[in-house]
Structure formats: structure tokens, C-alpha cells
């Protein structure tokens, strides 16, 4: 039953005992504030971890070639291994389904210019699948496609920052760009979450680069992503098999670490996963710790409040207040204060995180934030704890003989 008089009594008590109300409110607000901030920062660290692997696909495998260090099958050590287009095709044929996307790469350093603007960039000559492996996002135009490869067209896709650097007065799309004296048409502009360097890249069809810069079918390195349905261990054994087969193909000793190197992101991903798990546990510990501190705080305050109001309780009892009326007036007051203060703490916490976000990014904390439901849950926990902590002394106080309470001066 809604009892307006009870609420009047409670609000008068809160209003007239401001110091007491503010102090208890402050404890709760502070606990929730800390909870929100700590949780937010922990979440921000987690986001940074995720971010670190955002640049490229997480199921990435990179294959480099190098110089052999061991003689094998009658071949001397120190032989330079060179991948060619047919090696690319071999892997695709040999492993079929296990390969999700694959691109070979040729890297060329170029001086690029458009009108009067000049700068140096790296060109990556690639297959169309590179889009998915690098996780580029097309901002304008299109990406390199199979037709470009077949026809060896002189087109490039440039990073957002290349456009910013060179195309100061116009848009890059559809214009020509001069790379080491040869004109290429810009058919697309892309963005990338991997940072500024990734956005200062220029991509061109691999066949075009092979013809213009070497007139050969050489490949510097190969990138592929394994089928994402594989778990870490399957992925690792897949890359081991891949390594073995490639070494066979190039007659490299099994224990030669340099001739061909295969790096599987699954190893790193596993470590990151474990780190995230550890971070999750730290978050939990922090959260519970803060909550427990808050619970202890509000409990202490409730005990103190009941003690302070003993005389008032005695007077009320002498005037005919029933025990349950005594209990409800104390409890509802504490619930109201906790709820309001908890909400303020939540707002303050979100506000602090919002303000601090730009600064925190320097310290590897990205997008710190907490879900509202989590903080509201924490507030409700505090309210429940405060209620429970208040109930016991309130119940006790309601049983005090009025004469004892009144003597308590």
C-alpha cells in the first residue's frame, strides 16, 4: 500500500539530517563510481588487446622465403629460395578447403607523385583476396579484381592517407598517380584499422608488378588465412604440414629454420585468448572487491544511523509507533539514499570515463566503458546489502524498550 505519510516522514528525515544522508550517499556513490571506473579501465585494456589483432585477420598464416642454412639432397647451404606464382597455385590446389583466402605479394618501394605533391610509399602487389586478409575497407571505388590480374591493368588502390598526402585539392578516385615514372589509374581508396602505416599503402595487381618491375613471376611472400572452423590446435598442425610440404618441394632440410618460414597467428591468438581470460579474472576480482568494500561501508553506516536514532526511536515508540513502522522508516530511508546515490555514482563514473577516454588511449586503454546493466546490477546489490545490513540493527532497535532508548542521552 502506498502510504504518502510514510514517504513524507522519510523525506523529512532525509532532508533534515543532511550530513548523515550525504555521508551515507557519498559512500555508495563512491563505491559505484570506483566500480564503474575500474571496470571501464579493465574493459578498455581488453579492447586494446582485441584491437591489436584487428589489423589483419586473426587466422592469418604468413610464408616467407630466405636463404637455406643446411645442405640437403646434394644442394649446398646458402641457396636463395624464391617463390613463384606456381607455388601459390600449388598451395591452393594441395590444401583446398583448408585455405580460406590467399594472396601472394611483391613489395616495391616507390616515389609517388601527383601534380606537385611527392612522397615515398610502399607498393604491395597482391591478389584480390588480400582485401580479406588485410581487412581493408573500401572507402571509394573498388578493389583489385581478377580481371586486373588477367589483363595486367595499370591500376592501383591507395590508402586514405596517400590520398590526403598527394591529392590536396581534388579527389584521387579516377585520377592518375605517378609511381617511379609510370602512370597508374587510381580505381579505389581504402581505409584500414591497422594504423597510419597501413593507410599509407598502395596496392596493385601482382601480375602488373611482376611484368613492369621484373618481367618475371617471382613472389616475395605469401599470405593465407586458414579455414576459421579449425580450432587452434588443428590450425597449428595445418601450418606444420604446410611447412613440411613446402620444404619438401624446395628440397630444404626439415630442420632448416631459414629457407622457408611459416608464421601462424593461431599461436599468438592462443596467447591473447589466455591473456583475455586472465584479464577477465582480474576484472571480476576488482569488481567484487569494490562491491564488498561498498557493502561494508553501507553496513557500517546503517549500524551507525540506527545507533544515532535510538532516542528518536524511543520517542516514537512511546508515542505509539509499532515495531514494523520503525523498521520500515529506517529501511526505506536507506534504500532511497542508496538508490539515488548509486545512480549519481553511475552517472559520475560514466562521465569520468567519457572525459578520460582521449587521455587513456595513450596508455593502451581504448574505449573504456561499462554496460549500464552491470552498474545497475552493482547498485542493486549495494541496495540489497544496505537493506540487509540496515534490517538487523533496525529490527534490534524496534525491539529496544522505549525506556532504554529514552535514557540513552
Amino acid at each position, binding site marked *: 500500500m502506498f502510504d504518502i505519510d510514510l514517504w*513524507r*516522514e522519510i523525506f523529512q*528525515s532525509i532532508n533534515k539530517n543532511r550530513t548523515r544522508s550525504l555521508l551515507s550517499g557519498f559512500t555508495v556513490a563512491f563505491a559505484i563510481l570506483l566500480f564503474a571506473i575500474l571496470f571501464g579501465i579493465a574493459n578498455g585494456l581488453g579492447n586494446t588487446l582485441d584491437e591489436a589483432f584487428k589489423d589483419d585477420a586473426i587466422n592469418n598464416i604468413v610464408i616467407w622465403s630466405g636463404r637455406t642454412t643446411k645442405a640437403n639432397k646434394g644442394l649446398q647451404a646458402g641457396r636463395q629460395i624464391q617463390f613463384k606464382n606456381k607455388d601459390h597455385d600449388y598451395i591452393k590446389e594441395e590444401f583446398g578447403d583448408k585455405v580460406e583466402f590467399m594472396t601472394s605479394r611483391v613489395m616495391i618501394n616507390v616515389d609517388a607523385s601527383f601534380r606537385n605533391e611527392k612522397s615515398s610509399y610502399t607498393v604491395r602487389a597482391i591478389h584480390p583476396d588480400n582485401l580479406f586478409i588485410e581487412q581493408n575497407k573500401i572507402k571509394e571505388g573498388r578493389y583489385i579484381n581478377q580481371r586486373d590480374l588477367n589483363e595486367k591493368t595499370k591500376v592501383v588502390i591507395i590508402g586514405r592517407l596517400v590520398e590526403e598526402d598527394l591529392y590536396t585539392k581534388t579527389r584521387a578516385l579516377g585520377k592518375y598517380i605517378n609511381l617511379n615514372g609510370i602512370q597508374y589509374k587510381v580505381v579505389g581508396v581504402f581505409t584500414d584499422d591497422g594504423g597510419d602505416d597501413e593507410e599509407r599503402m598502395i596496392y596493385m595487381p601482382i601480375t602488373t608488378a611482376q611484368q613492369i618491375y621484373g618481367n618475371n613471376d617471382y613472389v616475395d611472400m605469401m599470405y593465407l588465412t586458414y579455414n576459421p572452423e579449425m580450432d587452434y590446435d588443428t590450425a597449428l598442425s595445418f601450418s606444420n604440414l604446410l611447412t613440411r610440404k613446402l620444404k619438401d618441394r624446395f628440397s630444404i632440410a626439415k630442420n632448416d629454420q631459414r629457407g622457408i618460414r611459416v608464421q601462424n597467428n593461431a599461436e599468438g591468438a592462443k596467447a591473447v585468448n589466455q591473456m583475455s581470460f586472465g584479464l577477465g579474472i582480474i576484472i571480476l576480482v576488482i569488481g567484487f572487491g569494490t562491491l564488498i568494500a561498498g557493502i561494508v561501508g553501507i553496513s557500517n553506516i546503517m549500524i551507525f544511523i540506527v545507533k544515532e536514532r535510538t532516542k528518536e526511536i*524511543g*520517542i516514537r515508540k512511546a508515542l*505509539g509507533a*509499532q515495531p514494523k513502522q520503525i523498521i520500515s522508516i529506517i529501511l526505506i530511508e536507506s534504500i532511497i539514499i542508496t538508490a539515488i546515490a548509486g545512480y549519481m555514482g553511475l552517472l559520475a563514473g560514466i562521465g569520468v570515463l567519457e572525459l578520460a577516454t582521449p587521455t587513456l588511449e595513450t596508455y593502451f586503454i581504448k574505449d573504456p566503458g561499462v554496460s549500464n546493466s552491470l552498474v545497475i546490477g552493482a547498485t542493486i546489490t549495494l541496495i540489497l546489502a544496505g537493506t540487509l545490513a540496515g534490517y538487523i540493527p533496525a529490527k534490534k532497535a524496534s525491539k529496544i524498550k*522505549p525506556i532504554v532508548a529514552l535514557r540513552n542521552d
Partner: protein
Amino acid sequence: MLKISQLHKSYPIGDSSLHVLKGIDLSVDAGEMVAIMGSSGSGKSTLLNIIGMLDEADSGDYILDEVPIKNLTEKKAAVYRNKFLGFIFQSFNLINYKNALENVALPLYYQGLKRKERQEKGKFHLEKVGLLDWAHHLPSELSGGQKQRVAIARALAANPKLLLADEPTGALDTTTSYEIMEFLQQLNDEGKTILIVTHEEDIAEMCKRIVRLRDGVIMEDKPVEQVRASQYV
């Protein structure tokens, strides 16, 4: 109105216990004004607290307005206190964050009256003690005499059958004491039954009957010629 027989009460003190009331027999009729006197430790306050249902007797009978007061639940005691009794304390016991009117209206709140009715009745009783102009002042803004008058108005608000005053003038100077007594006499003249615990002879003589306690027993119980407080004011 009030009948007590063979009332015993002792308080535990460490291992032993202090026998405070040793078989009290007392009856008070409606309209009486009784002073309960005795030196400190004589048990007078304990007796008043038991009569006021603020404390419980160990043994003996206590009948108030034909209702036996025994083994009351907290809830029932609260209802009886509210219905039968009005308290006046030496230290006033006003709630310090409530103004005079709110203090007076508090017992009415526990009677379940509506706010408007409480305000009206509260104002009526404040006017009766001559403090209507002070209705919205906090206790801290009132003098001792004014505080006690607010307390009396509060005790009267619930229209109790019996007014219990524990050293009502104990914290007041002589002039103010007499003013309070004059007011209590007026109430008694209007028919209110009043019990006053005091150790001051002059206050006791302003009642109609003096009961003297010593070491937990009634030594003397005699009617007196009432001294009107108005002659001193």
C-alpha cells in the same frame, strides 16, 4: 481507572539483582492528580515506566481502564500506549528535526489520522498551550518552558486517558516550573487524570494526592490540600 496490586520489579546488576519495586499496591481514579515522590533510587521512575508500558513488571497485576496489561506483544503495547497514555519527560524528548506542530502531530500519525486532521488537531493543542505562533519553530528555537509545553501538547494530542509526567519540571527554573504546573492543574480541572513523578515538595503539593515511595514500597499515600500554581505566576 488504574489499579496496581503486588507489583514487583528487579533489575539485574552483574550477578545479583536489584529489587526496585517490592509489592506496590496503588489505585488511581479518573480525574485524580497524583504526585509520586521519593528520593532517587526509591523506584518512583520505575513505577511510572511500568504504568506507562515503557517497562514491564516481573510480577503483579496492572489494570488500566479495565484492560489487564500483561504479556503484551510489542504491537499491542504500541497501540495501548498510543490510545491510553500521554508522556511528558524531564528532557522533553522532542524530535529535534521536526517543528513544534510536527512533534505535536506525531502521535496522531501513529493513530492513523489523515494529514489534514493531524494538522488541525495539532494546531488546536498548540493553541491550548499558547504556542500556536511557534508552530513552525524547531525545538532548538524554543525555550525550556516552551519545549515542555510542546511536549504537553503532544501528550494531549492523542487524547489519552492518563497523562504521565516524569519530573516534568526537573529541567526548568522555578517560575517556568510553576507555569507548567498551572497548566497541568488546568488540565486536571478539565478532568484529565495526571500522574506526576517528582522529588520537589512544592511541585507535589500542587497535586491532589501524594504517594511517597521509599526503597520500593509505598510509605505514605495521602490526599493533600492542592496549592494552586496560579498564585505564584
